[in-house]
């Protein structure tokens, strides 16, 4: 293997080539070429149904791509699933933890599933509880938590094993502004420690916090760049303007 390739492998966290997913007649994602660099916070934007969740699910191995390929943290999406699973964390758009387990039991379960045992497991739980300030709710059933707490619990479970790459699908939907700000501080902490983060959002202020962004519309990648570059590409002033313009265009096509 050449040195150049090695450098690429360490620099690039996610690389997709012509990724496509269809559900029967519905084309959810089409010809997607994405590149996410190591250690960056990468935002994915797009109207409802534009293919954000489908993209993440493919990258996590939850959906098999209909065409195209990808590498995730240097592993091939089609042939190295188990290596990928060990290196990524995922928070689904819909709360996916056990309502009938307590906060502690959920975190313990996920940490243990990732192979932590004994003293290391206990230490990691303490660490996560401190980092995400979960201690006051430790013995509460997850089903009884409010939105913000649920999302923090989700993040604790998704990061229990120090993943190299974190996929967050609308992690701050239904979370109040203060909790949202705190959540983003934690995301930055993770990125500073070297975790690559892919996050989808509908909030423009959150989009502005991402180092780079991808814009999806009807399954197509239509722009990729920094929060400053993208509006310029469309001759608009802000990302929000781009977003609304895209949605208008989508509706025009659908009509």
């Amino acid at each position: 293997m050449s040195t150049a390739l090695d450098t690429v492998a360490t620099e690039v966290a996610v690389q997709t080539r012509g990724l496509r997913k269809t559900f029967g007649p519905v084309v959810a994602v089409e010809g997607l070429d994405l590149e996410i660099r190591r250690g960056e916070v990468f935002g994915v934007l797009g109207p409802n149904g534009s293919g954000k969740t489908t993209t993440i699910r493919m990258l996590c191995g939850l959906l098999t791509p209909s065409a195209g390929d990808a590498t995730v943290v240097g592993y091939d999406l089609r042939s190295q699933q188990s290596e990928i699973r060990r290196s990524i964390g995922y928070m689904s758009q819909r709360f996916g933890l056990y309502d009938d387990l307590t906060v502690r039991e959920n975190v313990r379960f996920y940490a243990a599933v990732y192979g932590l045992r004994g003293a290391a497991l206990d230490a990691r739980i303490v660490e996560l509880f401190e980092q995400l300030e979960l201690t006051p709710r430790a013995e509460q059933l997850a089903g009884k938590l409010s939105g913000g707490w649920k999302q923090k619990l989700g993040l604790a479970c998704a990061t229990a094993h120090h993943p190299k790459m974190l996929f967050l699908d609308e992690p701050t939907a239904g979370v109040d502004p203060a909790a949202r700000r705190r959540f983003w501080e934690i995301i930055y902490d993770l990125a500073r420690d070297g975790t690559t983060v892919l996050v989808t959002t509908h909030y423009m202020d959150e989009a502005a916090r991402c180092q780079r962004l991808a814009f999806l519309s009807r399954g197509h990648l239509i722009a990729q760049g920094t929060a400053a570059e993208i509006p310029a590409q469309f001759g608009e002033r802000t990302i929000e303007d781009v977003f609304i313009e895209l949605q208008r265009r989508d509706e025009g096509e659908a009509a």
Partner: protein
Amino acid sequence: MLARFRRAGLWPMLRKEFIQLRRDRLTLAMVVVLPAVQLLLFGYAIRTEVRNLPTVVLDESQSSESRALIDVMRNTGNFRVIGSVASRAEVRRVIERGEASAAVIIPPDFAANLKRGRSATAQIVVDAADPMAASAAISGAALAGAARSSAILAQRTGGQPPLEVRVRPWYNPGMRSEAYIVPGVIGVLLSITSLVVMSLAVVRERERGTLEQLVVTPLGRTSLLLGKVLPFVAVGYVQMTVVLVLGKLVFDIPVRGSLLLLYLIAGAFITANLGIGLLISTAVKSQVQATQLGYFVMLPNILLSGFMFPRESMPEIAQWIGLVLPLTYFLTVLRGILLKSASLSAIWPETLALVTMATVLFSLSVLRFRKTVE
């Protein structure tokens, strides 16, 4: 092998499932209380024979001979004499009102005819609206008549009756249907609850969205499914114990063979049914579908396994279907061990069938299960 599962996350999975099971009051009630209630219902309601028919007597003969006949009839156990009546009109009235289901009418000349060596007649009136009761009355009357005849004949000739057929009902001397039905009910309840509860297990996680979060982890397929199955094997054992104890206390079913052997084979039986449930659970999209499919599988279990109707009298195709049901084999095992104190040498083919089914069904579910959300 254990080490492999340990790495693949079987223990955390088991721990989680047991905690959830403990908090799931509804499932717990369903698997422990429901079988108990059903056992009582089934045990009392399903009776393939009728005993103690309420019977009135119109004894116009008032002789030692007439009383001897009534005694013999009472001894068959099919009749319970609830009183005497004075006229045929009264016979009609009590039967019409449902106070009695049968009446024995012994005419005035009964004893006289016997004395003269003539044939004496007695009459049984039966409310045949219930065919089961009617056939019990008829067979009871025929039995009593034959027994009394041969006794009288023997008296007259001063010797032994020329022919006597002795029926020995082995294993179930009282010919009580509970002894046959209750072990069957144990099998049916075990198979139904394991199947239904299990068929919901995986699809419930799919519906709630927790499966999506679970399958992105390195947790192995075998660990995931084994973690789902093993707690319910334990539940199955609790269930079996509850119904066995109840069966013993309430219906006095005999436990003649080795309980250890029964419990060992039950493990394979429970796992086989859980395997069917698991297979359903990995195949369907919703809990509703799972329940529907579960019922679809339950019906042949009840009808074709030999639980209610003897398999020997079924059409060939029904017998073939019966051969793929774990319950068919387990019924033989249950009745064999409980009633006939069968040892492994007598029931090894059934045991082998159950172990094979358990293994094949579980492996099939693991192979079918995909760690995706498609």
